[in-house]
């Protein structure tokens, strides 16, 4: 099946979820992801799933927790201020090993900010964001096709690790329209013996993150830490373009990576040896590939739509001896290819 359909980014997330077997969606209206919620309002009943518009993002994430605890593939979508509210529930899901997918279609902050696209939730998405030390996989699509594909991957990884997974896109990508190749629906879903479905013919199952006695708690956390370490070792993904001979490496994800691609092409036309490293998982981050490029003597340009958050990860990866420039936009405006090209040109 390779039918091409013109589709919006947010709709591609919804359709990707349905293809992945998601049958429960809970959400609250917030721009710029309203079309995702509205799409689910008619699609979930069509596929025999559950749709509920909730009283708040808090209720939405806790409903995802409840639905996912019964073994169903469940998700919510929101945008930055709503994502802040959902940190509580995400922490509970990480602590109780409940798999689910949360799509954060980022807008500008802090506070109310505005509804323009942004990447300012990078730290919140990649560092967990909620209380307690836990880790999440965070996927960063940069095309509408990837909005679909990475949402499908998110459900797979959530179940694989029994952990919440974040799909992190910006509002520009959520609203973008592009042709999408429809994927085959996932037919075989994993068995979930841990799910709460009624204790019939088996001992009871519990979904919790609580230990009354601190003496008993470290052993449980140790297992979680080991799991998250496995996740970090095995799930790092990135796309590299023209890295082989690159003297300057541009690092960008999401919408910024699209401007980055144009900027790289402009630079190449000007005989500047630029390569693009686009993290697909921003958590786990591409530390090793960047460290290898630093070893080779590359210079780095970080292009992102925030005050400079991924910049810290890049600095951690390449060390203090490499030259790094930040080119960014913030406040809900796109980062242009011209601005990125200028930054590349300055490094030559």
């Amino acid at each position, binding site marked *: 099946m390779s039918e091409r359909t013109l589709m919006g980014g947010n709709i591609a997330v919804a359709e990707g979820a349905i293809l992945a077997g998601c049958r429960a969606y*809970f959400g609250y209206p917030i721009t710029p992801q309203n079309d995702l919620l509205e799409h689910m309002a008619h699609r979930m009943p069509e596929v025999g799933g559950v749709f509920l518009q909730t009283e708040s993002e808090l209720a939405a994430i806790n409903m995802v927790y409840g639905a996912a605890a019964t073994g169903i593939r469940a998700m919510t979508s929101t945008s930055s201020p709503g994502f802040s509210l959902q940190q509580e*529930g995400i922490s509970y899901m990480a602590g109780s090993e409940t798999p689910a997918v949360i799509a954060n279609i980022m807008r500008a902050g802090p506070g109310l900010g505005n509804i323009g696209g942004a990447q300012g939730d990078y730290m919140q998405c990649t560092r967990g964001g909620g209380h307690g030390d836990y880790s999440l996989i965070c996927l960063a699509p940069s095309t509408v096709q990837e909005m679909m594909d990475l949402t499908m991957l998110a459900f797979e990884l959530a179940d694989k690790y029994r952990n919440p997974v974040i799909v992190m896109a910006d509002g520009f990508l959520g609203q973008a329209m592009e042709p999408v190749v429809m994927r085959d629906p996932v037919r075989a879903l994993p068995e979930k013996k841990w799910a709460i479905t009624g*204790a019939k013919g088996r001992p009871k199952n519990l979904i919790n993150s609580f230990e009354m006695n601190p003496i008993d708690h470290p052993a449980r956390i140790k297992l979680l830490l080991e799991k998250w370490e496995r996740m970090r070792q095995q799930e790092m993904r990135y796309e590299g373009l023209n890295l082989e001979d690159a003297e300057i490496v541009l690092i960008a994800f999401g919408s910024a990576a699209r401007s980055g691609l144009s900027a790289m092409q402009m630079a190449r036309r000007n005989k500047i040896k630029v390569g693009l490293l686009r993290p697909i998982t921003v958590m786990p981050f591409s530390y090793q590939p960047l460290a290898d490029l630093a070893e080779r003597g590359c210079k780095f340009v970080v292009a992102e739509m925030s005050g400079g958050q991924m910049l810290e990860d890049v600095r951690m990866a390449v060390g203090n001896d490499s030259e790094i420039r930040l080119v960014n936009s913030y406040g809900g405006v796109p980062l242009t290819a011209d601005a990125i090209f200028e930054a590349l040109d300055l490094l030559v």
Partner: protein
Amino acid sequence: MNEEEYRIFGRPEVMEDRPTHFCPGCGHGIIQRMIGEVIDELGIQERAICIGSIGCTVTSYAYFKVDGLEAAHGRAPAVATAIKRCHPELIAFTIQGDGDLASIGMAEIVHACARGENFTVIFANNATYGMTGGQLAPTTLLGMYTSSTPLGRSEKQAGFPIRVSEMLATLDGPSYIARVAVHTPANVRKARKAIEIAFRAQMAGLGLSLVEVLSMCPINWKVEPRQAPAWMNEKMIPQYPLGEFKVIPEVERLRRSMRG
């Protein structure tokens, strides 16, 4: 004589053989037991889901041999909503205290009621935050001393206590809302009956059922356990009158068909 003949008071089948973590004179143990008796009587152990909340109800799921989940503070009605929407055949119940349900979780319970979600809420009201050391709760009585109202609750500083059952009964979604107490054996019998009605209402798919149980907290009321029932009678019940606040006709018919 064998052991069976000796036994006049056993543990409900569904309850785990373990001591509770409740303080002397606390009403929570009675509440747990009543729920256990009702689960046994209705034969729903294999499809019951216990949703614990935060506060003294935190380990509720530890006392029942049923599948369980621990919800975040105040969010149990959201969790229960999703479980029942995804699996209507399960019997979901939350056990929530007054801080959990009537303060931080007020939005979740109000909207679950408004939507008429089909699960059961056992709401333990002891007029204080028991687990954290007896602070002001939304249900704390006027004039009542708590660790965060050292001069007693004044309406000017801390507002008025909330009558949850009366308030939720104004909504159209719930099928059954009652307030009961566990300070005397006669009241315990009535409370058990109300809990049974609430579970039966859920089994019949009639919408949200809620039983508010006035429960003793002698440690934080700073009275002797044996004096706590009298304290409840004198102080709490005038503010929180016992009775049924919402009984839809289908529940009324269901109740009439119950034995006893």
